[in-house]
């Protein structure tokens, strides 16, 4: 018998989304500016050293009588027709542009940022100052956003009567190649594109002609662009643009960030001397109406599913028009979607949106949101940024918030009018997450930000860029070095490092000069570097970009083989999306798991596809969708959580069950002070455990776990493995740790001594699987290993040679190689979070509180529950092999 709810969902998916209607709908909505109701505060500051302070006078008055000296009549009329008025920050940006200055606009969502960014361009083009040719380049982190903005520009352009005079086009990975060639030969006035496309454009042989007349670059969601290697690549592309188009002005659009100065530097050349773009800030808007969802039900000590809260979440969906339900991982999204549909007696249209789903399915969900036919969308970070697909009136964040800025960004997805409060709920999934939610509420209340620090430009990205510049045309060493240092992430690049990168690009950068005759770039008698041949340039173009996708396999619905019951045919079915190869590997035939909102039965791997059939209705998926957050807890929230725990006077602000839990912990063990590290040791089921709670995020804890395991191994404590989560970690082994710590004063201090970040770290890094993964990314970005090769089919599984082996050989024979340095630099901040661990170890010196217990404490239960759930990291491959061998022996003797 079929489950009626399942049927209703299928009907909905198949029929309820009127595709053509949505397209019209999106096209006709001017979403860029919202109606005038009240003006927000505006402040602007200019501290750029090189320019005279008197320019301040040219900014419009912050508020009061709207003057638009710079606004042409057609524009003023367009605003007036709608009953709107240009906002002060829109005019301020216009004034900066007319003075030829770069500027950063920091504003909350709903402030009309995008129109502000384009207004100067539209005004200039309307006045006819663009003689034809490319005038403005718009760059966004998402190609969908670029396409959306292009659509949204149609309304004002038509309203002002410019549609005959301004050509606006997009260029993304999906743009057909004939159109791309035409865009270079006959460029539009405004081109909307992505960082990867910019890299390709500046590496084009015609780049100099294309960009000579460029007046402005608008960088949207700049705060999101600059935090990754993508931002490094973009900064290098912008540095080239500054050189090709002297007098070019940048406009950065950003949400509120902790350090706007870093973004201001990013926008302008840092040579001949450091400089910053102007800053225009729009204050707050309405305060968000943010609460923690309290259902009165007892939450578990660990786990991320939040199933206890699902009925309450469902009720909220019923009471609102359109709800975005954010979760942290794809598996959580699948689980939440499934649970909501189990409760969905009203048959509400609830959809699912995450990065692993097939793109057409995602587009349909987005269109349905915009058309107003959905009541809720369960989504991951894929909807964090940018596009307003519909009139969202509530945001629900399930699970830990992880960072204050992240949660504010998500809240901002609701109610895109800055003068009305956004409404949002935080839904903790366990008692620790209640602490984290409380800390996040406090942070949002204070509008405190925890956006990441500015980056130091990665060397692997620079290597990619250098090859691209050789593809564009001959370059001189000195010229390119100066140009690269104009990009703020590379402002401190030494000449030696630059030359190392150049050598790497040419011949691989090996001490053994084996590849001179195969060099990719060559220096001619004129001293200029040139690309070797057209094939090398083609290889560059095929491998551009910094986003290394994890290897995935397609999930295909298989058809049952009618002639052979119980078997399936490998072809013919629909592709549902993609899953990580790592996950696919853990499946055996017959396993059921959640994907695309359905329970699927795994039928086997066929070539690079996972074949599945629909699982029996009403059954529970066998593979648990546990998965914590992939975002580590921010340092800032961690400190707040520690402070909350340490201060009993704060506990009455916590849900009673969390306060009780902390009271229990204080009774059975101890509660650490905000700067202390609590270490508990206890026996359990023939093993001995050490649990500690640094609150530094999962990545730092995994690194710490590896290092502690190493040291315990050397101390003869026979550790077997460890498990870590965002709050702490537990190491377990065969020897009594309480006894050893009691017997040997200083043992624990030695275990956590700062010098573990020296040799121990180096030694471990050498063998670390995470380090190898990091190295692989650097090797691909820097072009040592190609993702794609001319003549090969397009797939992510193209790396035919094991980067692990390359890593091993390289570190043995040339440990100082450029790519190993790049990987170590990444490790310090990325996967291993060594930098954060270092700060923590310094903090806890002399502040370790040890408690030897008879059994697991309330606090430790949380991390103990990760064992066997999270992957257990540990050492001693031979112990694993010996155990497998023993099984053979048992088999032989049985």
């Amino acid at each position, binding site marked *: 018998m079929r489950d009626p709810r399942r049927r209703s969902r299928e009907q909905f998916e198949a029929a309820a989304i009127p595709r053509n209607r949505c397209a019209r709908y999106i096209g006709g909505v001017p979403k860029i500016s919202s109606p005038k109701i009240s003006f927000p505060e505006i402040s602007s500051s200019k501290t750029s050293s090189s320019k005279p302070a008197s320019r301040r006078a040219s900014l419009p008055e912050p508020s009061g009588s709207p003057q638009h000296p710079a606004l042409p009549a057609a524009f003023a009329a367009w605003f007036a027709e709608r009953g709107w008025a240009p906002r002060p920050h829109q005019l301020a940006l216009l004034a900066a542009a007319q003075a030829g200055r770069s500027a950063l606009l920091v504003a909350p969502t709903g402030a009309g940022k995008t129109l502000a960014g384009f207004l100067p361009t539209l005004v200039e083009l309307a006045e006819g100052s663009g003689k034809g040719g490319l005038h403005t380049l718009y760059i966004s982190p998402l190609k969908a956003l670029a396409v959306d903005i292009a659509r949204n520009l149609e309304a004002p352009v038509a309203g002002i009567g410019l549609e005959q005079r301004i050509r606006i086009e997009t260029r993304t990975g999906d743009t057909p190649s004939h159109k791309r060639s035409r865009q270079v030969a006959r460029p539009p006035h405004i081109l909307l594109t992505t960082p990867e496309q910019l890299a390709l454009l500046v590496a084009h042989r015609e780049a100099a002609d294309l960009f000579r007349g460029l007046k402005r670059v608008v960088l949207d969601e700049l705060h999101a662009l600059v935090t990754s290697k993508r931002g490094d690549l973009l900064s290098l592309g912008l540095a080239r643009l500054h050189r090709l188009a002297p007098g070019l002005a940048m406009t950065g659009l950003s949400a509120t960030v902790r350090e706007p100065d870093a973004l201001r530097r990013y926008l302008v050349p840092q040579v001949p001397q450091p400089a910053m773009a102007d800053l225009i800030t729009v204050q707050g808007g309405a305060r968000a109406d943010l609460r923690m969802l309290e259902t009165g039900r007892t939450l578990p000590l660990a786990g991320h599913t939040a199933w206890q809260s699902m009925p309450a979440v469902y009720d909220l969906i019923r009471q609102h028009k359109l709800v975005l339900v954010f979760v942290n991982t794809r598996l959580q999204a699948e689980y939440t979607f499934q649970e909501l549909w189990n409760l969905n007696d009203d048959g509400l249209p609830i959809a699912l949106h995450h990065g692993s789903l097939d793109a057409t399915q995602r587009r349909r969900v987005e269109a349905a949101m915009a058309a107003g036919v959905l009541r809720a969308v369960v989504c991951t970070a894929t909807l964090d940024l940018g596009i307003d697909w519909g009139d969202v009136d509530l945001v629900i964040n399930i699970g830990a918030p992880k960072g204050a800025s992240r949660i504010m960004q998500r809240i901002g997805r609701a109610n895109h009018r800055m003068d009305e409060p956004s409404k949002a709920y935080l839904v903790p999934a366990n008692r620790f997450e209640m602490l984290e939610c409380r800390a996040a509420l406090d942070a949002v209340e204070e509008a405190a930000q925890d956006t990441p620090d500015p980056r130091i430009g990665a060397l692997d990205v620079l290597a990619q860029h250098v090859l691209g510049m050789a593809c564009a045309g001959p370059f001189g060493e000195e010229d390119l070095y100066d140009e690269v240092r104009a990009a703020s992430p590379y402002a401190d690049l030494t000449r030696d490092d630059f030359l190392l990168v150049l050598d790497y690009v040419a*011949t*691989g950068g*090996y001490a*053994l000069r*084996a*590849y001179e005759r*195969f060099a*990719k770039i060559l220096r001619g008698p004129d001293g200029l570097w040139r690309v*070797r041949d057209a*094939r*090398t340039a083609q*290889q560059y173009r095929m491998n551009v970009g910094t986003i290394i996708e994890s290897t995935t396999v397609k999930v295909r619905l298989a058809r049952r083989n009618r002639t052979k019951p119980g078997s399936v045919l490998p072809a013919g079915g629909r592709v549902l999306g993609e899953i990580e190869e790592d996950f696919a*590997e853990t499946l055996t035939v017959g396993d059921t798991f959640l994907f695309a909102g359905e329970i699927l039965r795994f039928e086997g791997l066929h070539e690079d596809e996972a074949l599945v059939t629909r699982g029996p209705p009403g059954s529970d998926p066998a593979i648990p969708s546990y998965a914590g957050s992939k975002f580590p807890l921010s340092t800032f929230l961690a400190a707040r959580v520690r402070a909350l725990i340490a201060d009993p006077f704060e506990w009455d602000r916590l849900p009673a069950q969390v306060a009780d839990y902390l009271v229990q912990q204080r009774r059975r063990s101890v509660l650490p002070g905000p700067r202390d590290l609590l270490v508990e040791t206890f026996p359990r089921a023939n093993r001995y455990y050490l649990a500690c709670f640094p609150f530094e995020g999962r990545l730092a804890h995994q690194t710490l776990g590896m290092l502690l395991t190493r040291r315990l191994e050397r101390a003869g404590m026979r550790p077997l*493995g460890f498990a870590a989560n965002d709050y702490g970690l537990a190491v377990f082994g065969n020897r009594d740790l309480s006894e050893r710590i009691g017997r040997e004063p200083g043992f624990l201090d030695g275990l956590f001594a700062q010098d573990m970040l020296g040799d121990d770290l180096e030694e471990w890094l050498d063998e670390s699987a995470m380090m190898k993964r990091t190295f692989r990314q650097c090797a691909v970005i820097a*072009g*040592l*290993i*190609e993702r794609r*090769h001319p003549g090969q089919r397009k797939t992510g599984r193209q790396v*035919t*040679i*094991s980067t692990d*082996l*390359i890593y*091993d*050989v*390289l570190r*043995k*024979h*040339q440990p100082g*190689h450029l790519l190993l340095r790049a990987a170590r630099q990444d490790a310090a901040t990325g996967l291993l979070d060594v930098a954060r661990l270092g700060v923590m170890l310094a903090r806890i010196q002399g502040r370790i509180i040890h408690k030897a217990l008879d059994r697991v404490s309330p606090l430790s239960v949380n991390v103990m529950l990760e064992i*066997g759930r999270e*992957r*257990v*990291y*540990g050492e001693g*491959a*031979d*112990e*694993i*092999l*010996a*155990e*497998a*061998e*023993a*099984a*053979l*022996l048992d*088999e032989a003797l049985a």
Partner: protein
Amino acid sequence: MALPLKLEKTHKTPGATLAGETLAFDLSGGLWLPEHRTLVVSDLHLEKGSAFAARSGQFLPPYDTRETLASLHEAVARLDPARLVCLGDSFHDAQGPARLDVADRALIAALQDGRDWVWISGNHDRAVQDGIGGCFADTLTIGGLTLRHEPAAKPEIGEVAGHFHPVGKVAMRGRAVRRRCFVLDGTRLVMPAFGALTGGLNVRSETFDKLFPGGFTAHLIGDGRVFAIARTMLTRD
């Protein structure tokens, strides 16, 4: 755990036998035939790095040849074989010998000095027939053993081959260990690849089901010794 673990470095496993011959699986990845004082190594793939640089512009570290020869040197110094057999695909391509670095060429000459040296030809290096010392052959018979690069279609008692670069993967308690291995049933042996930049094929793939229709034991090369592991304990990639 009842089984006493011996994790100190012992280079040999308790011998397996094939066609009446004693086999010792060396930690280096070589096969030691003590009764014949013969060391067999398979799939060296020398000059693989430079082959990539020449053909596709991917500059893999040029240290693979040095690394492979260093491992071989270590095993030779320890075992002092009277005869050394390279079981095919000794070079990654036919131009490999020509691209050899002077120092690497000298290393090979030093290894060949004072012992018999046989290059069995493989699919990658069939065109290499001289100029690198030693003698060349397609198959070689040693006692009851027949040595060739690629396993024959039909199982042949006493066959020792390479070509497939077998690796085994053990997954336990959420950890996975993936290592090169010797694959053996009562009839034939497939050797692991010896080269530093050679990847591997999981022994749970169909290829090995066909080669060993009655199942096999894999001898995985650990950090300190070689471990005999039943097929049922091994997982797919």
